[in-house]
C-alpha cells in the first residue's frame, strides 16, 4: 500500500484515537499532529478534578511521550493552524509554516462560548473553562479570591462550581433559565441536583442574568439584571461551547454549526475528514445532524476517521447525546431525547434520591434519565442505538432487575458466550 502524508489538527480525544485507527492497519504512513496547546494529550473532562485538587496535573495525561514515538507521530505543540487550502492540500500555520498533506483530519475541538456583548467580559479574572491553561490561571486567582461567580448552570458551569467549592471559594452560580442542567437532565432530575448543590453550600440563582462585569482592568464585581451587585475576583463562564471551525471558513469545506461529515467522517472535500467536537454527525435519536460534543463520540469518530483514511471502509453508527456525571455523591446518567415528545414512564423515590425516566416513541426507546441508581444504564443506551422494538418488555423497563438476558432477543448479538 502506498504510504501517505497524514496531517491531524488537534491532539485530544479524536486526534489521538485517529492515530490508533491509522496504526492498526498502516505502520508506515507519516503522521503529523498539530496542536495549539502546550501539553501532551490530556483528559479534558477532568480539568474540574484538577481544579478541585483531587487529581494532579501530571495525572491528566492519557497518552504520554511513548505513544507518539511508538506510533511514529510527529507532534507539533503550540502551533496554531490558521487556514486550510483544500486545492493545494496545505495547512497554513499562524507562524507562517506551510504543511502539505495527502489526507487531513480536522479535530480542532470546540471553545467556550463567551458572551461578547456583555459589558466587561474582557476584564482580567473572567475565564472560559476548557483547558489546563484556563485551570492554572483560575487556580492562581482562586488562591487569593474569596468569592467566585459561575455564569451558566450547565455541566461545565456546575463542574467549575464544584471544583471552586472544594477550593474553599464562596461560589454563586448565576443561571439565566429557570433550572440547572437543562441540556442533560429533565426538570425533575435538575430539581434533585439543585437541592443537592444548595445543601452543600453552593448558591444557585435561577432566572437571573449578569448585566455587567465591573472593575478597572481586574474584575471586582458582577452586576445582575435585578440590580444586585456581587463582589468577586473570579468569574467562570459556562455557557456552552462552539466548534472551532474558523480555520476552514474560507475554504470550501461545508460547515453548519460544526463541520458536516458523512457516516465515514468525510467532509464534502476529498481526503478531508473531521471528527470530535468540531464535527456535526448524524444523531440516531433526533435523526438530524447534531454537534454532539462528547468525549466518547470523539474517540469513536476519531478512530473511525483514522481507519477510513487508510482505506478501511467503516461506517459510523451515528452519535447521540449522553452524559454521566456525579455531584456530591449523586450520580446522573442521561441519554437521547428525554424531554418533550413521546410516551413517558418514570419512577421517583425522593427519600432515597432515586429517579428514573424513560421516553418511548413508536415502540422504541428514544431517551432515558437515571439519578441515584445508574447500574445497567448501558442496556438502555443499547436499546436506543439499535432502535430495538421494546413493546414486549415495556413493563419491565423501569424494573431494577432489568438485565441483558431480558433484552438479548431484542438486540444484535455480536459475540456468542452462552450455549
Amino acid at each position, binding site marked *: 500500500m502506498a504510504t501517505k502524508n497524514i496531517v491531524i489538527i488537534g491532539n485530544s480525544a479524536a486526534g489521538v*484515537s485517529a492515530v490508533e485507527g491509522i496504526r492498526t492497519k498502516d505502520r508506515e504512513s507519516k503522521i503529523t499532529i498539530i496542536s495549539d496547546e502546550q501539553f501532551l494529550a490530556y*483528559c*479534558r*473532562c*477532568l480539568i474540574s*478534578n484538577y481544579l478541585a485538587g*483531587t*487529581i494532579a496535573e501530571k*495525572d491528566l*495525561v*492519557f*497518552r504520554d511521550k511513548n505513544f507518539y514515538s511508538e506510533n511514529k507521530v510527529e507532534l507539533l505543540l503550540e502551533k496554531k493552524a490558521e487556514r486550510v487550502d483544500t486545492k493545494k492540500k496545505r495547512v497554513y500555520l499562524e507562524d507562517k509554516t506551510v504543511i502539505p498533506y495527502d489526507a487531513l483530519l480536522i479535530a480542532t475541538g470546540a471553545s467556550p462560548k463567551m458572551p461578547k456583548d456583555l459589558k466587561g467580559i474582557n476584564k482580567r479574572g473572567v475565564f472560559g473553562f476548557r483547558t489546563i491553561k484556563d485551570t492554572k490561571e483560575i487556580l492562581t486567582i482562586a488562591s487569593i479570591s474569596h468569592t467566585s461567580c459561575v455564569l451558566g448552570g450547565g455541566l461545565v458551569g456546575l463542574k467549575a462550581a464544584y471544583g471552586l467549592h472544594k477550593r474553599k471559594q464562596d461560589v454563586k452560580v448565576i443561571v439565566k433559565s429557570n433550572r440547572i442542567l437543562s441540556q442533560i437532565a429533565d426538570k425533575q432530575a435538575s430539581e434533585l441536583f439543585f437541592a443537592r448543590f444548595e445543601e452543600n453550600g453552593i448558591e444557585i440563582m435561577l432566572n437571573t442574568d449578569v448585566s455587567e462585569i465591573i472593575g478597572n482592568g481586574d474584575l471586582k464585581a458582577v452586576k445582575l439584571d435585578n440590580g444586585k451587585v456581587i463582589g468577586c475576583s473570579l468569574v467562570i463562564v459556562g455557557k456552552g461551547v462552539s466548534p472551532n471551525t474558523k480555520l476552514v471558513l474560507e475554504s470550501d469545506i461545508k460547515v453548519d454549526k460544526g463541520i458536516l461529515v458523512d457516516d465515514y467522517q468525510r467532509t464534502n472535500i476529498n481526503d478531508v475528514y473531521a471528527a470530535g467536537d468540531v464535527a456535526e454527525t448524524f444523531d440516531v435519536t433526533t435523526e438530524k445532524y447534531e454537534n454532539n460534543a462528547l*468525549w*466518547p463520540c470523539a*474517540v*469513536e469518530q476519531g*478512530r473511525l476517521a483514522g481507519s477510513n483514511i487508510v482505506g478501511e471502509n467503516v461506517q459510523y453508527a451515528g452519535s447521540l447525546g*449522553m*452524559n*454521566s*456525571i*456525579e455531584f456530591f*455523591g449523586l*450520580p446522573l*446518567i442521561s*441519554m437521547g431525547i428525554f424531554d418533550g415528545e413521546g410516551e413517558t414512564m418514570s419512577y421517583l423515590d425522593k427519600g432515597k434520591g432515586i429517579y428514573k425516566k424513560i421516553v418511548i416513541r413508536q415502540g422504541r426507546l428514544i431517551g432515558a434519565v437515571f439519578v441515584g441508581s*445508574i*447500574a*445497567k*444504564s*448501558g*442496556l438502555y*443506551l*443499547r436499546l436506543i442505538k439499535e432502535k430495538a422494538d421494546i413493546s414486549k418488555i415495556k413493563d419491565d423497563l423501569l424494573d431494577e*432487575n*432489568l*438485565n*441483558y*438476558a*431480558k433484552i*438479548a432477543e431484542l*438486540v444484535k448479538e*455480536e*459475540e*456468542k*458466550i*452462552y*450455549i
Partner: protein
Amino acid sequence: MKKLYYDVSKCLACKSCELACAVGKSVAKELFKAINEEVKPQSCVDVKTTGGKNFPIACRHCKEHPCVSACIAGALSYDESKGRVIYNKDKCVGCWMCVMVCPYGAIRDNKELKIPIRCDLCADTDEPRCIKACPMGAIMFLEEEEFDKMLAEKKVNKKPV
C-alpha cells in the same frame, strides 16, 4: 486469549460463582473474614433468570469495547495480545461513563469505593475463581476456537425428537 463462556442449560442459579467472585474481590480473600470487612466486597458476575433459564452476566472483554472509548480518565485500556480490557484504579475518577455505555449492563457502580464493579477474569490468579466454584461445570474458560468447536458439535449432536 481465553474468555468465559457459560452453558445455561446447566446453570441452576445457585450463585456459587457470585460468592466466589465477591470473596475474590475482598481484602482477606476468605469468606468468613470477608463478610466482616467494612466495605462489603461485591461480585462482578450477576446471575439473572429469564424465560426459565439462568444467565451469569459479567464483563465479556468485548472486541469492540465501548467502555474503553468512553473512559474520560484513561483508566480503561484494551490489551490486544491478551484480548482483555485492563483497568487502572489509580487513574479512575468514578465518572461512570463505562456504566453508561456497557452494552451488556455488566459494569456496575461501587458507590462506596467509587470504582466500577467489573470482571477482570481474576487477574490476580491463573484462572477466574467462578469456574471452580460452579458445582455444575456451567462456567468454562476457553479459547474462542474451542468454544466455536463446542457450539458446532452441540448442533450436530442435537437429534430430532
